[in-house]
């Protein structure tokens, strides 16, 4: 019901949750210690699991290939520490499902230096070589979705990439990893952009930064190489500004067709930390061994932005930073789209952008669920103009197919804006996930 939405140069609808970024946004990235035991699931990305190529008892050095890509929509896995393969078997993941994985015992006194591989230089390499290099480095979207980046960069036949969008929006509350990366790894980002430009053929590059990271935007704008077609654009603070569809709409004024991708309207969107990782790893032929993670929330003693080896167990992470006595909930990712973890035996993966810890006293219990009063707050929040109120009522009635056919259920990307606004505390996103699952299963059973 906002009066002044039309004054903003941004996508329509959306919400303004409390940001909680001040506690960590000024803390520089710090190297995290190596855990004695690293747990590496072979499925840290969206797609096909990686295939393990090492054996139990084998000694590996940091950066060594442990598992190769299991197909095109898959990435390899590199050793985050030097050590011994202690065990291979099923390891726990955040979804609750166990997947094949590796337990790696790290050498306590190793220098943990990463050996140089066969580098790919941006000036001499062909687009195909760069694309292969990105897959070989094990790079996935570091914003949280963990979709293999080379798949996204493979421009389909007949499509053309006109504009490359570097996503430094970071609209999730609490998270400040992209913010710190933009401040501290600007050179890597601009080198990464060169690689990406060569792969996509984009003539134009926009680095999108939300207005609450003004210093990062200024820093990047000051470092743009001369005569490079790169523009740093500051966007109004609004959730979910960083979602691909919303970002493309805000920047280009065009909509991604329902069920389509940004490339359908000539755009490719890549997260800023992913870009920095490409610029940092490709020249040296290395793979991802660690990533920047914001550890914050009222239950954490030493909040900060840490460079943490992939596979570090959550228990070790929280022991190092210290937590409150009565911790009650831990989320991986932000509070809007992140996942709550059931126990601390799982490990940090490539898609982990934040670890948020909340003690019992800080959790706002959503115990009173009232009926839908059709206030329309969810409609005013939904960035893609769905009717979550109606969808919620249909979901409760089990009308999953009607939701998909008449009310565009499958377009929902679960940003959580509707459930955030709902005064009746109806778990709308949970309903929609279940309904989408039902619809997918039914479709799969037909074909």
């Amino acid at each position, binding site marked *: 019901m906002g009066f002044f939405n039309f004054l903003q140069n941004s996508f329509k609808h959306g919400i303004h949750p409390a940001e909680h970024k001040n506690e960590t946004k000024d803390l520089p990235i710090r190297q995290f210690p190596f855990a004695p035991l690293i747990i590496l699931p072979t499925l840290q990305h969206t797609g096909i699991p990686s295939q393990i190529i090492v054996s139990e008892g084998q000694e590996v050095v940091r950066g060594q290939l442990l598992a190769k890509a299991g197909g095109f929509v898959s990435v390899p896995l590199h050793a985050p520490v030097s050590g011994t393969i202690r065990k291979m078997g099923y390891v726990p993941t955040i979804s609750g499902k166990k997947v094949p994985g590796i337990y790696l015992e790290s050498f306590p006194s190793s220098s943990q230096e990463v050996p140089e591989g066969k580098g790919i230089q941006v000036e001499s390499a062909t687009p195909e070589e760069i694309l292969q290099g990105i897959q070989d480095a094990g790079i996935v979207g570091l914003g949280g979705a963990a979709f293999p980046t080379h798949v996204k960069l493979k421009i389909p036949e007949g499509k053309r990439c006109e504009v490359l969008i570097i996503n430094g929006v970071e609209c999730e509350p609490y998270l400040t990893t992209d913010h710190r990366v933009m401040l501290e790894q600007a050179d890597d980002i601009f080198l990464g952009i060169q690689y990406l430009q060569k792969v996509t053929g984009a003539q134009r590059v926009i680095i999108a930064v939300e207005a609450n990271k003004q210093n990062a935007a200024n820093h990047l704008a000051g470092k743009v190489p001369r005569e490079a077609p790169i523009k740093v654009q500051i966007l109004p603070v609004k959730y979910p500004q960083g979602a691909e*569809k919303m970002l493309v709409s805000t920047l280009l004024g065009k909509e991604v067709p329902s069920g389509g991708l940004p490339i359908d309207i000539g755009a490719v969107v890549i997260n800023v930390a992913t870009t920095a990782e490409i610029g940092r790893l490709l020249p040296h032929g290395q793979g991802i061994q660690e990533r920047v993670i914001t550890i914050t929330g009222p239950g954490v003693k030493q909040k900060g932005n840490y460079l943490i080896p992939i596979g570090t167990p959550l228990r070790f992470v929280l022991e190092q930073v210290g937590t409150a006595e009565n911790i009650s909930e831990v989320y991986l990712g932000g509070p809007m789209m992140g996942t*709550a973890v059931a126990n601390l035996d799982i490990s940090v993966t490539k898609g982990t952008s934040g670890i948020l810890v909340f003690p019992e006293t800080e959790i706002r219990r959503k115990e009173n669920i009232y009926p839908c009063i059709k206030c329309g707050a969810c409609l005013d929040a939904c960035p893609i103009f769905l009717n979550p109120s109606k969808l919620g009522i249909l979901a409760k009635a089990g009308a999953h197919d009607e939701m998909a056919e008449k009310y565009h259920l499958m377009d929902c990307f679960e940003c959580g804006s509707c459930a955030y606004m709902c005064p009746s505390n109806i778990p709308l996103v949970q309903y929609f996930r279940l309904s989408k699952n039902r619809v997918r299963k039914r479709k799969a059973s037909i074909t």
Partner: protein
Amino acid sequence: MLNKTLNISTSPHAVQGVSTADIMRNVVWALLPAAFFGVYAFGLSALFLLITTTVSAVLTEHFLCRFSNKESTVSDWSAVITGLLLGMTLPPNFPLWMAFLGGVISITLGKFIFGGLGCNVFNPALVGRAFLQAAFPVAITTWYPAFLPDRFSTYSVATFTLPFMEPALDGFTGATPLAAFKFSHQATAIPELALGLISGSTGETCAVLIILGGLYLIARNMMNWRIPASILLTVFAFCGLLNLINSELYPTPLFMLFSGGLMLGAVFMATDLVASPVTPLGNWVYGAIIGLLVVVIRIWGGLPEGVMYAVLLGNAISPHIDNLIKPRVYGTGKR
């Protein structure tokens, strides 16, 4: 410490913090100034009436929940709104036993049989009032003069009549500003109307306080401003057009806006969240339909007042508006 079992929940883990009960409670706060003005203008009778309808609605809700083995939903405050609104639409000297019956009917037939809060098709208070209008047509059109000097020491004889006995009518029939215009073409001055220095239903007379209550809710994002805006604009435009055609026969648009129950209806009745459309455009259409109906009933209908039926008819078509007017989903169809 780190071995304890953690709680899990699905995203989003953040909530905005205003609950349905908060919204309902604030609607009650917003209604109170106009209600208190009614008590100030009409005295003890009005006070007894408002208490009766509110208590009746709340008790009915509580016992219906109990009898159907559900947890009582009184704490969501919606029954209080229904009871208070019902009282505000009744004449101040309305017999209390009828008012109590109206509260029972509002909750039972207006809300509970549809499935309780969130499922009601009509504004429950208006269902109760429609019942009273049909059952007690004389009592509901017997008005009581405002600002009687002894209003805080005595009350209307009609107030405490016994159930099913003829009420002793001590008011005067058909002398509200709307009736005066309809039946004898006497227009009341606008400032008197706006400030509520007139006779009428208990809570509908002071347009200024009703508007202030509405603005409070709009400022707190708890009311859909489009609905009252649409109703009032439509009434103003339609009535203004008629007035331009023949100013002898048709009242001025300002008179239309500030007389009778239009303000209360537009701000607090038609905006019943459950019984109104959910889309912005739908709200404009819904408001326009109600506005047109109000003018049509008032000018060409047999009754001097038409807000109640206009809103009820609007409620009835609201689901169809939602079916016809759907927001264009991102990335589909033409812009």
